[in-house]
């Protein structure tokens, strides 16, 4: 999967960082650097529409589509006001420069007064499988550069089933710490006491519109002739459920492998400890014997060189997989609860027959 980098070295736009007043924006008052937990979050409708459109046109199949979110931080709110999509990575575009594209876009958008502060990125997902190394890395680099970044995950399949599925995530500060130090050993994670539940935190999304857009909505409501479709109340669901469960099972298999790896590691470690003990004891015994016989004791050899401790397996992958499994389970539960509701409604309908 492609790795998105926020552009970093554009000198003339270097002032565009949170905490520095932005020239040419609507609200040029200085932004205080806040702890991100205080930020609430809102989204404009055209961002939603653009994301939907981008997936619809370019992302058929299980390809993920990605793009950049632009906006600004106003008071204590993070507002996302615009976005632009990223082209797909194809083999024959080897000389395509992502950073160049980004810089061009942002420069051009600046001319038309569109907010050009990079506040995050979005990605589409396939049945909810987005917790991966690539996502973590991208989000980490974004959040490192810009503190308030979020990643918006758009689930097109769930949306097609009746309700817009758009979620915003951020890395928790604990996870940021760990990523900074790149310390993925079990001891490191234990120190920070990170579980899969406090890896990402979800930020609630609010959609906000200006008055003009409201007028537009009224207008479209009048003119639009498409009938109200009720896909949400569709009863046939087994396909979706099957796929989700399939993915869940795959993940559980992966996790299983990781666990086996970890178990072998700890077993090896304890075996090694035992061997070390035995060796030291034998040494001491021999030394005692030699002393009793009046011979010089054997030199103490460096134990660590004899018994090299086995490599601790990195725990990050298993953490990610656990997080992903958690996500799948959540989705499945949501899905089943909706379906149960629908089934009971169908029963009520039949009852009247």
């Amino acid at each position: 999967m492609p790795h998105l980098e926020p552009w970093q070295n554009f000198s003339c736009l270097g002032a565009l960082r949170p905490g520095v007043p932005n020239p040419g924006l609507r609200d040029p008052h200085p932004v205080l650097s806040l702890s991100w937990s205080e930020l609430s979050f809102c989204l404009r409708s055209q961002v939603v529409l653009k994301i939907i459109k981008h997936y619809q046109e370019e992302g058929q199949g299980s390809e993920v589509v990605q793009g950049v979110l632009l906006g600004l931080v106003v008071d204590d709110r993070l507002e996302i006001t615009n976005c632009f999509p990223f082209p797909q990575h194809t083999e024959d575009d080897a000389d395509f420069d992502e950073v160049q594209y980004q810089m061009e876009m942002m420069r051009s958008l600046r001319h038309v007064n569109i907010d050009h502060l990079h506040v995050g990125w979005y990605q589409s997902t396939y049945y909810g499988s987005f917790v991966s190394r690539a996502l973590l890395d991208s989000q980490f680099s974004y959040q490192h550069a810009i503190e308030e970044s979020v990643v918006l995950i758009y689930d097109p399949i769930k949306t097609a089933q009746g309700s817009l599925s758009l979620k915003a995530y951020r890395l928790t500060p604990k996870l940021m710490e760990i990523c900074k130090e790149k310390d993925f050993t079990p001891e490191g994670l234990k120190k920070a006491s990170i579980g899969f539940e406090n890896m990402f935190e979800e930020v609630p999304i609010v959609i906000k519109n200006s008055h003009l857009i409201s007028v537009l909505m009224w207008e479209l409501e009048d003119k639009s002739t498409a009938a109200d479709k009720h896909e949400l109340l569709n009863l046939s669901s087994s396909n979706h459920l099957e796929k989700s469960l399939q993915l869940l099972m795959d993940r559980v298999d992966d996790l299983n492998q990781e666990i086996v790896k970890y178990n072998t590691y700890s077993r090896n470690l304890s075996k090694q400890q035992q061997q070390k003990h035995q060796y030291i004891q034998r040494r001491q015994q021999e030394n005692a014997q030699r002393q009793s016989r009046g011979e010089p004791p054997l030199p103490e050899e460096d134990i660590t060189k004899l018994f090299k401790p086995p490599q601790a397996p990195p725990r990050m992958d298993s953490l990610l997989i656990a997080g992903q499994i958690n996500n799948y389970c959540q989705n499945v539960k949501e899905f089943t609860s909706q379906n149960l509701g629908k089934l009971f409604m169908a029963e009520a309908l039949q009852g009247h027959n």
Partner: protein
Amino acid sequence: MSVFGPVVKIHPVVLASISDSYERRNEGASRVIGTLLGTIDKHSIEVTNCFSVPHNESEDEVAVDMEFAKNMYELHKRVSPTEVIIGWYATGFDITEHSVLIHEYYSREATNPIHLTVDTALQSGKMNIRAYVSAQMGVPGKTVGVMFTPLTVKYIHYDTERIGMDLLQRTRLATTRTKGLTSDLSQVGGAAARIQDMLTTVLAYIEDVLSGKVTADNSVGRFLMDLVNKVPTISAEDFENMLNSNINDLLMVTYLSNLTQAQIALNEKLVLL
């Protein structure tokens, strides 16, 4: 009035972008212009994307940053190679002389470009959205002028767009113009409530017809017959079986996912010991 020429189909994302760029216009500019991108079919033109282009307009002259327009188009083409320039838009109610000049420029970029006006100043109390195509008029060889002929405008959405739009529509009813995203069972509840509303309307209509206040309309009656027949008649026992097996499936899946979650939580705790 019959209109000739292709039908223009607009996606809502285009209109939202246009409104947004109007809100962000420079001081002193009374209107915003930009390029429309989309696809051309035999009988229809589908507008799927747009971007605004900086321009300066004064009494006697108009300057459009064409370099910028070209650049943006290139960038957009990288993402969606199927979109082509099909015309341009302008906010504001009327078509001015400057529009003719701009239209000429766009004729060089695309064959027979369309011109879209979006009345963001709400001059007639509504946001009028019209589309035009230019046609030559006048005496050939002598004074030739350009006339803009209107086209029919339709709004189309992809399915997912429709669902997104539903949610966005609900923002206009809230006083602060904001709306959170609901999840889970509350969505089903919402959808059921909407159907209930519709049924109440239908019932009110039927009451009126029965009490003679409104004359019965045969086509509506046929629709009602359809509606009632849509509920499938299945024997109670069969339905019970189907319902139970479905419910069992769902409950089992819920149980398994809860189990999995407990399992991974336990695993976490053990590892971090």
